[in-house]
């Protein structure tokens, strides 16, 4: 009965510890975010207007989706440098498809849009597959594999677009995306939520998700345990690119045009958002919540600085300082 005793105490202990860790773990960053927003709010009351908070939500939704995608490659000790240019490529390609179909059969714009979206996702999957196979089968380092893919996407994007933004995308797309609301939630945010929920489900409830974590945590061990590590790796990168493609389509809808340069700055941001939130670059760790927090943090920071009218170049400096201190404070909880 001593064993029983231990068992019970341990169980209760565990319950407390878990819940504690969960809450605390999720807590510090949000606190920082809260603190910052108060500061901004005091300096510029307009910060708290519904409109602006709405802006922050919409703006962050894109980054969050990107971060979630990036997280899949990070969990398996990877990296995806190609997301930025992949966005450009998907954006241009899908836009071209839509524009073409819309011009050939102007009576069915929705069909055109649907096909365009489909094409975009397909391209995403293809790119992910290539990345995955290069990394898993040819054993090219993720950094190089995705760097190569970066160049390829960039080239294709600017070639097929001839360097110009793709206009005459059926404007039902942008309209539907920017003005519709589901239960009062703007569509971009709704999409982001959907992506997050699905991603969280995959990571926590499916065998694939479990294998992702195990492979990321110790590849050799997972092979020894009979996990098809290579396939899991490919899966991770496909998922990453697929989600990135979704983000690309969201952005295309937001801009209402195919943009050959759109992706440029987004690669670093996606990784930053994930890592600030708490995803580990060493693999094996990472939750959707981390990405959400990171995404909101970055977006709110730049939005806030715009609202209180911090000068352009200073914004970069402030951003740097805040990011470092933020992550530092966040890491404190781990000690």
């Amino acid at each position, binding site marked *: 009965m001593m064993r029983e005793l231990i068992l019970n105490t341990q169980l209760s202990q565990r319950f407390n510890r878990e819940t504690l860790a969960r809450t605390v773990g999720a807590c510090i960053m949000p606190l920082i975010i809260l603190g910052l927003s108060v500061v901004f709010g005091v300096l510029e009351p*307009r910060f708290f*207007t519904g*409109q*602006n908070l709405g*802006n922050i939500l*919409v*703006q962050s939704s*894109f980054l969050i989706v990107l971060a979630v995608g990036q997280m899949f490659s990070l969990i398996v000790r990877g990296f995806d440098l190609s997301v*930025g240019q992949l966005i*450009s490529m998907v954006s241009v390609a899908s836009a071209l498809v839509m524009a073409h179909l819309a011009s050939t059969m102007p009576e069915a714009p929705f069909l055109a849009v649907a096909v365009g979206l489909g094409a975009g996702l397909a391209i995403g999957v293809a790119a992910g597959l290539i990345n995955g196979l290069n990394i898993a089968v040819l054993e090219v380092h993720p950094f190089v594999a995705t760097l190569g893919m970066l160049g390829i996407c*960039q080239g294709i*994007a*600017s070639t097929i*677009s*001839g*360097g*110009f*933004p*793709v*206009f005459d995308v059926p404007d039902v797309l*942008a309209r539907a995306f*920017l003005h519709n609301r589901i239960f009062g939630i703007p569509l971009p945010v709704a999409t982001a939520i959907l992506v997050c929920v699905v991603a969280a489900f995959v990571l926590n409830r499916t065998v694939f998700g479990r294998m992702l974590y195990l492979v990321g945590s110790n590849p050799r061990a997972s092979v020894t345990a009979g996990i098809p590590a290579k396939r899991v790796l490919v899966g991770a990168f496909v998922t990453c690119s697929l989600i990135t493609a979704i983000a690309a389509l969201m*952005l295309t809808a*937001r*801009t*209402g*045009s195919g*943009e*050959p*340069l*759109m*992706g*440029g*700055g*987004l690669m670093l941001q996606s990784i930053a958002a994930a890592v600030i939130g708490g995803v580990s670059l060493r693999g094996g760790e990472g939750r959707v919540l981390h990405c959400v927090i990171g995404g909101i943090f970055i*977006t709110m920071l*730049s*939005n806030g600085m*715009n*609202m209180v*009218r911090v*000068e*352009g*170049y200073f914004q970069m400096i402030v951003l740097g300082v805040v990011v470092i201190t933020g992550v530092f404070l966040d890491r404190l909880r781990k000690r």
Partner: protein
Amino acid sequence: QDAPWWPFTAEDWTSGEAVPIEYEPTETPTKKWKLCAVYPHIKDSWWIAVNYGQVSEAQRQGAELTIFEAGGYTNLNQQISQFDDCVALGADAILVSVISEAGLANQIEEATNNGTVIVGVGNPIFEAKVTSKIFTDQELMGFTGGQLVREMFGEDPARVVQFPGPQGAGWAESSAAGFRRAVEGSEIEILEDKYGDTGKSVQLRLVEDALQAHDDVDLLYGVAVMAEVAVTAVDEAGLADDTQIVSWYSNQGMIDGVKNGTISGTVTQYPVAIGRIGVDLAIRALEGREHAKEVHPVPLAVTAENVGDIDLTRAFAVPGFQPTFKVD
């Protein structure tokens, strides 16, 4: 406040074709308007000049001005967010220097419908519904540069390598198109279009390789950054007196280069004036006075002959001007 910058010779395209005008700003406005401006970036002398123009004009007309820079042509998403931030800040008028017209079309339309005054500044806006706009089309500038080159070589054949700028940024391609249109049917042969970011190290490498890849190149034509670094490269390759350099837009370096003869020619279109007029158009609209719907400054080809007598205060910020992000 220094000497008045007007009258300024320009073209009024409101009617759809060019009407030469002498632009003059409105008299002092009735109230302190809230203006907001978005830029692709403020990292080269061209946008700094626009910035200088906007800032000094805002000061002169006692307007409040907030300025956001997206940090580069790759950050369209950022610019859209900044546009939204302008609206959130409750600006009366927004001066947009678009990264991509198509990209901002929705935001612009929405804002105009909500009664915000939108003025397109610097970068071309063709379709989007704006209150007014002032820009020179890069295609036209490329064309002007092309004509200059044509004059330079007359009937002689010439081998040209073109450096239009970053691929994917619409303006690079347009300028290239303009150049081609100008040299159409002449003896001028375009060997290659070498696209690349407008960083100096990048352009330098492009030029170096181009000089190796092609023999007896007569002309290097393209962005100002290229022209600046090309001087060194050409000199090193020992081609100083066979290969000439022309850029299709100008910065301080270009003007100096034309003066000391290292650069054969460039094109300017008074970015300072563009900035000033942008602000003025906005305030006119807010004040409800009549105003032009579309103004184009006339791009001017600059060579050793005329470099002496162009008004640089309309082309460049005063020396020592710091890019400014707000005017209260």
